[in-house]
């Protein structure tokens, strides 16, 4: 009886607790605090944090791989895997991020971008952070090119793109990369303003832009089709992300499939957000997460955000000077995506100079262009460093 009790104690999680797993439980609690009390991207941080919690409970086995036996033409499951192992297949097989993008497309109004297509340039410039960070990661000597690319993409400020790329190039870093990406996206209102103010003059920040024209329904319908075809022809590995983003947007704009639009942007995206969040969090086990690499990723990630912000602002200034345009450079920073937070930051920083200046809609152009931009950059990285 005593022996049985002792055996049982050895099977409890208390027996398996390590300093690492306790640290991870503390990190999970911190993330929950940020998500719930500080309201930092709660829709993703709550599931991610809970995933971190669950995966670091010793012996719980939620990410356990199944044990199978192959005899002749039969595949027999000897012992099923853990719940999160199965849900995680949606990440590693690259299924969940594009489906989230479909929902994002169904929520996104590309009107401001169509009204002012030059926003696309700002959306491109902001991806500079991705590549400079890539070089930084390479220079650190800690990472392979695949890992460095996955770290750089944090600068794209787009959760699904980061997860899509990391799951294909460096699944072993998925946890820290996803956590860094979503944390920094939540911190955009803190990271961006100092950089924006440093790089602009008072006068530039007060520039008022001409009101955006109305965009016709027909333009909005043609836009997703054109973007899909052009981007996919230029960068085929970006087709999955861009294609699904644009399919969702077509559902939204075509006006004849309201049922599908509704499902894409509500029921479906919610389910996948839950699954993706928990499983991405569940990759952050103590052994994987408590590494010097994680610290490097966190440092490089915030650098990527900063450089992206700066690049967008600087290109806007350049366009003003060389092309004689009238762009408030504050909307350049919105090109990092982090929709819609970055656009809101442009608005707020602008109004600190001139309370009557409404940059929000102008900033939405580079903001949504940044989503396309980082998907394109992800496609380039995939084609350079992917196995396909």
């Amino acid at each position, binding site marked *: 009886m005593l022996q049985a009790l002792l055996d049982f104690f050895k099977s409890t999680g208390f027996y398996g607790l390590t300093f690492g797993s306790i640290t991870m439980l503390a990190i999970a609690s911190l993330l929950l605090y940020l998500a719930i009390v500080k309201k930092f991207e709660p829709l993703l941080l709550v599931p991610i944090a809970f995933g971190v919690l669950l995966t670091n409970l010793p012996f719980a086995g939620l990410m356990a791989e199944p044990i199978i036996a192959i005899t002749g033409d039969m595949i027999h499951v000897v012992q099923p895997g853990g719940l999160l192992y199965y849900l995680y297949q949606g990440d590693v097989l690259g299924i969940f991020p594009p489906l989230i993008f479909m929902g994002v497309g169904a929520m996104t109004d590309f009107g401001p971008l169509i009204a002012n297509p030059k926003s696309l340039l700002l*959306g*491109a410039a902001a991806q500079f952070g991705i590549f400079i960070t890539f*070089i930084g990661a390479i220079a650190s000597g800690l990472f*392979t*090119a695949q890992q460095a690319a996955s770290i750089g993409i944090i600068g794209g400020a787009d959760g699904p793109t980061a997860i899509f790329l990391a799951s294909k190039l460096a699944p072993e870093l998925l946890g820290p990369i996803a956590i860094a990406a979503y944390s920094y996206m939540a911190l955009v209102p803190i990271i961006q303003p100092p950089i924006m103010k440093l790089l602009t003059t008072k006068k530039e920040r007060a520039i008022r832009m001409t009101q955006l024209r109305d965009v016709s329904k027909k333009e909005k319908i*043609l836009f997703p089709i054109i973007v899909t075809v052009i981007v996919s022809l230029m960068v085929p590995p970006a087709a999955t992300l861009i294609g699904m983003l644009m399919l969702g947007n077509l559902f939204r704009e075509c006006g004849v499939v309201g049922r599908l639009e509704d499902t894409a942007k509500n029921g479906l995206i919610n389910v996948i957000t839950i699954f993706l969040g928990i499983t991405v969090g569940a990759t952050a086990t103590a052994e994987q997460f408590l590494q010097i690499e994680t610290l490097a990723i966190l440092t490089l990630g915030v650098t990527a955000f900063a450089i992206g912000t700066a690049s967008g602002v600087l290109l806007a200034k350049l366009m003003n000077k060389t092309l004689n345009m009238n762009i408030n450079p504050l909307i350049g920073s919105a090109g990092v995506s982090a929709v819609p937070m970055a656009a809101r930051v442009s608005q707020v920083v602008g109004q600190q100079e001139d309370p009557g200046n409404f940059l929000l809609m102008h900033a939405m152009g580079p903001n949504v262009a940044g989503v396309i*931009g980082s998907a394109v950059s992800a496609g*380039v990285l995939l084609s*350079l460093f992917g196995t396909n």
Partner: protein
Amino acid sequence: MTTTELLATFADPKLIHSLGIGDKLSAGLITTVLGMGITFSALVILLFIITWMTTLLNQAPATVPEVPKEEAVTKPGINTTANDNELVAAITTALAMTLKTSTSNIVIRNINKVDSPTPNWNKAGIIEQMNSRF
């Protein structure tokens, strides 16, 4: 080592550690030039095509955009008639039920539709449900 060879070595997780820091940084720079180059090219091409599309579409604001809309409403004429007639049928049925008489005793000659912002097929519950069936 040619650029192609360098990039191939760089892209191989097993071989990258054989590269010196200089080679790695060169490869990183090439990646950056390629990456930003292609990202900019793609979005610039998009910029031109979208500008061109909007110019085309907004050239003749009064005539071109209107046509297909009308077409959509009137071309499948049988369908429109169908909708109207169904509406008549539905209303007749409702009236009949209220008046407790047979449907065939009532004939509604015409109904003036009041335009509503919802799509056509959404108007009557039954028609909507029918259309959503496939």
